[in-house]
């Protein structure tokens, strides 16, 4: 048994997480992303909607014709790309947090109930989830937004609803495998009743896959929100949401590559960082992959 294992589970987790270089890089990028999102107004040089009419479609500063006043250039309306990207981080971060919290809390609760309930209720919940899963996520979100009206809030509700069944399935599956283990039976022998069994005994042992899923759905939420924005069904212009920015820039793709490239790179880097982190979480939390 290693020395590091003589501390609590958190230290042990960090010990394994640190091993995965990609995951640590992902964590740092994610931290930077969160920092930018939280302090966007302080970091951005300009207001994201401020239009500089005399400098429309300026290329990035290091290219001929660029201006260091606008390091990443300007968009077709003369707005500063860098400021818009920095503010865009807020929306993506916000979407990610809200979607994960809503989808995970609902999904975990339903999954716990399904895992502990009699067969009929379990079947009912799981069939309901099957129904939601039968709709491709983006399509369902799109239709929901079409009904509720295009806005970032509605997009978040739709995405959370669509991601929820994954948590239900995951939680239920781990509850079912944990429920018959001896330590749960021991808690029953000690007299623990259902709520205690569900939340104190079993739930903490089901968290590992759920945490990994949370990381994955954080990135899915960002991607889906951007896709909805791209289709004109998410955040509405002039909101500097990355997907919406891409949609606005579409017609300029062959003329001004930077208006298309930067928002996409921002999405890709953020999502990639979160997924790297998610992989690291999975490896660090999955005892099967640990080298003893």
């Amino acid at each position, binding site marked *: *048994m290693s020395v590091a*294992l*003589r501390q*609590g*589970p958190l230290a042990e987790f960090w010990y394994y997480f640190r091993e995965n270089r990609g995951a640590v890089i992902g964590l740092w990028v994610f931290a930077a992303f969160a920092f930018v999102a939280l302090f966007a107004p302080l970091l951005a040089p300009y207001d994201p909607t401020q239009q500089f009419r005399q400098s429309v479609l300026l290329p990035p500063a290091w290219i001929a014709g660029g201006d260091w006043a606008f390091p990443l250039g300007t968009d077709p309306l003369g707005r500063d790309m860098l400021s818009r990207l920095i503010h865009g981080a807020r929306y993506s971060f916000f979407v990610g947090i809200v979607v994960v919290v809503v989808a995970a809390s609902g999904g975990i609760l339903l999954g716990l109930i399904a895992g502990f309930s009699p067969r009929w209720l379990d079947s009912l919940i799981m069939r309901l989830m099957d129904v939601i899963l039968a709709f491709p996520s983006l399509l369902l979100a799109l239709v929901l937004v079409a009904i509720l009206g295009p806005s970032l809030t509605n997009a978040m509700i739709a995405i959370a609803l669509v991601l929820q069944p994954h948590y239900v399935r995951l939680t239920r599956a781990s509850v079912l495998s944990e429920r018959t*283990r*001896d*330590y749960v*039976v*021991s*808690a*029953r*022998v*000690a*007299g*623990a*009743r259902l709520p*205690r069994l569900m939340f104190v*005994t079993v739930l*903490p*042992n089901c968290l590992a896959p759920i945490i990994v899923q949370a990381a994955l759905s954080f990135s899915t939420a960002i991607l889906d929100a951007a896709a909805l924005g791209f289709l004109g069904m998410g955040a509405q212009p002039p909101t500097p949401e990355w997907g919406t920015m891409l949609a606005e820039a579409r017609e300029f793709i062959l003329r001004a590559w930077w208006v298309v490239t930067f928002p996409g790179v921002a999405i890709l880097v953020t999502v990639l960082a979160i997924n790297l982190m998610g992989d690291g979480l999975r490896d660090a939390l999955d005892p099967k992959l640990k080298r003893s």
Partner: protein
Amino acid sequence: MSAAVLMAEGLSRVYEIGGGLFGKPREIRALSDVSFEIARGRTLAVVGESGCGKSTLARVVTMIEPPSAGRFAIDGTDVTPGRWAGLRDAVQIVFQDPYGSLNPRQRISAILDEPLKINRKSLSRAEREAKVREVMALVGLRPEFHDRYPHMFSGGQRQRIAIARALMLEPRVLVLDEPVSALDLSVQSQILNLLMELQERLGLTYLFISHDLSVVRHVCDEVMVMYLGRAVETGAKAQVFDSPRHPYTLALLSATPVADPARRKERIKLTGELPSPLDIPLGCAFAARCWKAQDRCRAERPDLEGDGHKVACFFPEGG
């Protein structure tokens, strides 16, 4: 017979499996018509191979699941599911696998505290803590283990923790479900010694479940041999081990390897394997593997009969 702490009569447990929308569910008779009594401070060993119903018996006696038929009583109180909550502190259990039976997300202190927290609501936090430390000392766990997590311990120490948890409520009966089977030989003897010391000091009654005859022979006072959900032979240790009457007991004893190269003996060769618990044969369950089986054995089931040393066989050994 008020001396019996634990008394069971005709305990049965039937599971239904499969079924679903098609076909009717099939029945598994995991436990059929098992009766016994254990006097205070004594050890009854239940012996048998996998699928013989010994673990089901443990689960029924520990009030994890109700019997499908039959009754059992603790100190004269009939146990019914409605009374489970009040009787929790009478019977506790120690499981075989010391790795699966401790919650990996709880510290040792929390694991040991849980039974008190649930069942001794009147105790203050400090009183509970004192009790936890007292029991830790009792089972030989060092005080500094108090705040550690289960994965930091070896199998033997975990089994001590499991025993400590079972003792928290000061039970009268301890069900030991293969408590040393997962342990190495050198650790096994430590745990067996601990169990025997505890029995002497606390006057505990043990229901000791095991497949290992040499362990059973060392710890028990009485033995019940089970085969496919039924008791086939019961009696005092000396009776069962020295003059077994059921052919299955005999075969089991002769199949158990003895750590003495000088005593190479001829084994009774049993052919075949356990029948499926889904279709238990009509007559004696052991008839298909028994070298003495006659037509009657296959048609009719023998009852467990005898005075003190009981056997369920038409043609028992030794007359």
